[in-house]
C-alpha cells in the first residue's frame, strides 16, 4: 500500500482560505488545530497536515476499497522535518515529508522498510496534469503498461489486461505532479 499527495502552495493560497470559519474545525483534530495556530507559519502547517492526511487516506482506501471524506479521523504526528505518522483507528501509516517553498509532497507507506520509487516534478501544461503525471509514472515501465483506476479511484497498472502486483499512487496540484510505487509484490 502506498499513497502520495502534492500541494502546490501558490495555488493553495488562492484556492482555499484556511482562515475561513469552520475550515480548521471540520478537518483537523484539536491537537492539530493547536499546532497550526501556534506555528510560525500556520498556512504551511495547514497544508503539511492536509497533505499527510491525504497521502494516508490513499493508502487506507487501497486497503479497504471504500471512499469517504473524514479528514479529522486521520490524526497527524510530525516526528521531524522529513518524517511523520498518520493514524486512523488502529492503522498507522509512516509519512515521508518533502517540503519546499513551493510545494509539499507527502508519501505514505504502511511498512517504511518497503522499497519504493517516488518523484515530484513541475508540470507546465495546465489542462494535461493527469496525463502528464501518468506518463511520468509509466515511463518506468514497458510501453505496453497502462494505468487504470478502479471504481473507488484506486489506480493499478496493467500489462496486456493483467494487473501488475505493485501498489501505485499519483497526485497533482497546480504546477506540480508526483507519484510513488512499491517495488515489491503487494497485491
Amino acid at each position, binding site marked *: 500500500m502506498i499513497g502520495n499527495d502534492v*500541494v502546490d502552495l501558490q495555488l*493553495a493560497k488562492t*484556492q*482555499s482560505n484556511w482562515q*475561513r*470559519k*469552520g*475550515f480548521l474545525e*471540520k*478537518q483537523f483534530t484539536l491537537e492539530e488545530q493547536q499546532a497550526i495556530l501556534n506555528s510560525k507559519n500556520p498556512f504551511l502547517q495547514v497544508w503539511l497536515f*492536509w497533505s499527510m492526511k*491525504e497521502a494516508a487516506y490513499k493508502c487506507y482506501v487501497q486497503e479497504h476499497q471504500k*471512499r*469517504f*471524506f*473524514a*479528514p*479529522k479521523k486521520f490524526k497527524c504526528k510530525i516526528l521531524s522535518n522529513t518524517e511523520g505518522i498518520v493514524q486512523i483507528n488502529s492503522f498507522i501509516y509512516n509519512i515521508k515529508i518533502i517540503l519546499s517553498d513551493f510545494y509539499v509532497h507527502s508519501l505514505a507507506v504502511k511498512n517504511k522498510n518497503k522499497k519504493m520509487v517516488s518523484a515530484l516534478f513541475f508540470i507546465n501544461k495546465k489542462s494535461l496534469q493527469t496525463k502528464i503525471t501518468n506518463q511520468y509514472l509509466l515511463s518506468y515501465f514497458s510501453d505496453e503498461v497502462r494505468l487504470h483506476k478502479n471504481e473507488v*479511484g484506486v489506480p493499478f497498472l496493467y500489462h496486456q489486461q493483467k494487473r501488475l502486483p505493485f501498489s501505485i499512487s499519483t497526485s497533482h*496540484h497546480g504546477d506540480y505532479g508526483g507519484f510513488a510505487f512499491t517495488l515489491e509484490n503487494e497485491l
Partner: protein
Amino acid sequence: MTKEELIIKLQVIVKPYIQDEEAFKNLTEETDFINDLKINSANLVDVVLDVEDEFNIEIDNDSMEKMLSVKAAIEIIEKKLSA
C-alpha cells in the same frame, strides 16, 4: 423544497470549485464531486461549509463522511431540514 430546487442550489454552491465544465453542465443526482466534477479534495470542505451556510444546517462528521456526490448531499440536506 423540491429535489430539483435542491439540485439547483447545490449547483450554485459547487460552481466555484469544479474543474470539469462538461460534467458540471450535465450535473445530475448521480454526479460525483471528485470523480466527475474534479473538485479538489481540499475544496470539499468548502462545499460542506457552503451547504451549511446556505441551508442553515449543521453537517456532523458522520454525514460529512458520506458527502461525495450530489445524491448523498441531497439526502443529508433533506434529512437535516426535516429534523
